[in-house]
């Protein structure tokens, strides 16, 4: 069994990296008590809280945190008719936070994720590790058997081509979870007591051309590089599917990152995932996804973006056309999703006009 770290007494990080360049996006429907535990590592940063569910409910944010909070009314007000692309009654709504942020980097974390301990018992500063991952190159073109070659104590192994040792820019840092693992409903039903107690001390780049299941519980990315592709789809209320928001985004961003020559990392940091969601509820949400993913995966594996698609938005629009063309026959949902993908990009560009973006990147 593992326990979360006790962070009482740990001073707030005096030198928070990228303090003014990173926003923390948290979707919530209940409360943000978990932020008490994260204080030493997260307090210096600005929070964007996306409140899902009943907008009249008051969400209490622990003292000392600087934040902006958006509920459904705000989302509707800001996006108008385009608000239709933002999910309701599903944590997928978090991507609204990505859209309204003005920062270069995003860290997103679920409200049931606490601070983990490394094998020595030390509290893991997950955000700091994500930042290291993002600021350091990725190596998607050739696998390094010693994992992250830029890490202290590691390097490229014999035989690793020298021309590939500079790596590429990292767009996404995908962290993992101790305690409650991110299993699908069938697996949860079969193994309700299984806990992830294995701390794998590595960060690695996911090779080009390889897809992976991206979990949104503990995730960071470079918003400037890949933000527009981080749409978490249509889930929850009024939709035939749930718990595939991050998966959908993960498949899209990987195809686009591969196309644009950007890197995606996975591994450290760990957080401590405390709550197991109800597997029966999950099964109902995921049910269609389990069948659909059999078609969706080959779709993404074979998706080829054109040479002319050189921006994330262009890539994403192209992808949306392919979704409409190839997945609509699977279910009319994909037709709606393809439209929502376009709406998302339109909304993104409206809220993030190029001139403003240029100004932000200079800041």
């Amino acid at each position: 069994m593992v326990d979360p770290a006790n962070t009482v007494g740990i001073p707030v990080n005096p030198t928070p990296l990228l303090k003014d360049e990173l926003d923390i996006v948290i979707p919530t429907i209940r409360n943000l008590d978990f932020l008490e535990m994260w204080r030493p590592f997260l307090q210096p940063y600005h929070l964007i809280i996306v409140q899902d569910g009943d907008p009249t409910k008051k969400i209490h944010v622990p003292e000392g945190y600087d934040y902006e909070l958006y509920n459904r009314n705000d989302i509707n007000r800001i996006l108008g008719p385009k608000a239709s692309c933002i999910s309701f009654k599903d944590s997928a709504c978090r991507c609204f936070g990505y859209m309204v942020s003005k920062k270069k980097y995003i860290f997103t974390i679920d409200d049931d994720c606490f601070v983990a301990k490394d094998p020595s018992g030390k509290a893991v500063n997950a955000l700091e590790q994500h930042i290291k991952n993002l600021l350091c190159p990725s190596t998607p073109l050739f696998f390094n058997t010693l994992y992250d070659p830029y890490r202290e104590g590691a390097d490229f192994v014999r035989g690793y081509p020298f021309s590939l040792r500079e790596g590429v820019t990292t767009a996404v840092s995908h962290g993992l979870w101790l305690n409650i693992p991110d299993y699908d409903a069938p697996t949860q039903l079969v193994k309700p007591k299984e806990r992830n107690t294995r701390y794998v001390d590595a960060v690695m780049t996911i090779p080009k051309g390889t897809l992976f299941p991206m979990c949104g519980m503990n995730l960071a990315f470079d918003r400037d590089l890949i933000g527009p592709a981080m749409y978490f789809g249509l889930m929850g209320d009024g939709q035939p599917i749930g718990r595939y928001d991050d998966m959908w985004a993960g498949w899209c961003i990987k195809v686009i990152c591969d196309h644009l020559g950007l890197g995606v990392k996975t591994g450290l940091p760990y957080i401590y995932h405390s709550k197991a969601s109800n597997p029966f509820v999950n099964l109902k949400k995921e049910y269609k996804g389990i069948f659909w993913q059999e078609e969706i995966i080959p779709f993404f594996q074979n998706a080829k973006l054109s040479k002319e698609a050189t921006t994330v938005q262009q890539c994403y629009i192209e992808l949306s056309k392919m979704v409409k063309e190839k997945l609509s026959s699977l279910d009319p949902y994909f037709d709606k999703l393809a439209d929502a993908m376009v709406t998302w990009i339109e909304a993104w560009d409206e809220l993030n006009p190029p001139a403003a973006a240029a100004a932000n990147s200079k800041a």
Partner: protein
Amino acid sequence: MSSAEINKNEVDIVIGALNADLTQFLNCWRPFFSGFHLIIVKDPELKEELNIPEGFDVDVYSKADMEKIVGASNATMFSGYSCRYFGYLVSKKKYIVSIDDDCVPAKDPKGVLVDAVSQHVTNLENPATPLFFNTLYDPYCEGADFVRGYPFSLRSGVPCAASCGLWLNLADLDAPTQALKTEQRNTSYVDAVMTVPLKAMLPISGINIAFNRELVGPALVPALRIAGEGKVRWETLEDVWCGMCLKHISDHLGYGVKTGLPYVWRNERGDAVESLRKKWEGMKLMEKSVPFFESLKLPETAVTVEDCVVELAKAVKEQLGSDDPAFTQAADAMVKWVQLWNSVNSSG
């Protein structure tokens, strides 16, 4: 999986002896090698007699045996680190575990000695998952599983062709890197086994490796010799080339290659700076190899491992032959290797 559960009769442990005195090496490995059949192949260029301690079930092969079995001209294929391939050739077992003679068992973070043989065989006996990346790494190990979003149709995996282990202490770095970082030692024990995804290329090290001989034996080719190849790993590339071929063929035939555990503890040998003095051909050859393997497509008609090796050799000769004579020689060696494999293994 403990060693009690492994069918020891299915495994040969093949050691290439570049050092004459194997006493310390074998005594250190005794707890994990005992009960297994060992094949020790002596580097044909090693002059001294091998010193092997008592108590092992071992067959030793030397230059004379090589010449008898494959002929004097072919025996040159097995010099230096490539001597171990002769052991792969003559083995009759399903699995081969091969460890360099300057490595001893490592300790895990709890201080327990790692049974590298058991771990390798476990890796080989469990499926690999090259078609989709599992973020919790090996889904078949205790305490882990496939994560949410992993397609169900891919959860039975594919046969595992090879298990590539790692090294604590002296990692397998190249000479320039080790010369630059003379004090660097690998102290990081990463507790994971994972499948290297389909189409991803990697540098497979021969220092600590195991493979399913029945499945892919002929694909482990002793082929690429760099000019001035030496008796320290920094001065070789044969395993890296072999690994590129093996990975490509495994990808083509739908098998998987795993990397990660087990670790071995690798000791000091040689001098990286000294190795740097030699003209380092390896770098150039790797640079040329990468785009070749990246764009290579074996024909659909290549359905056996032998076919794949022959087709690969053809492509090497056609596309890389003019770049460097080392590639032409490698291509010829690969063809010869398949012939030898077939003749040695059909005669039983």
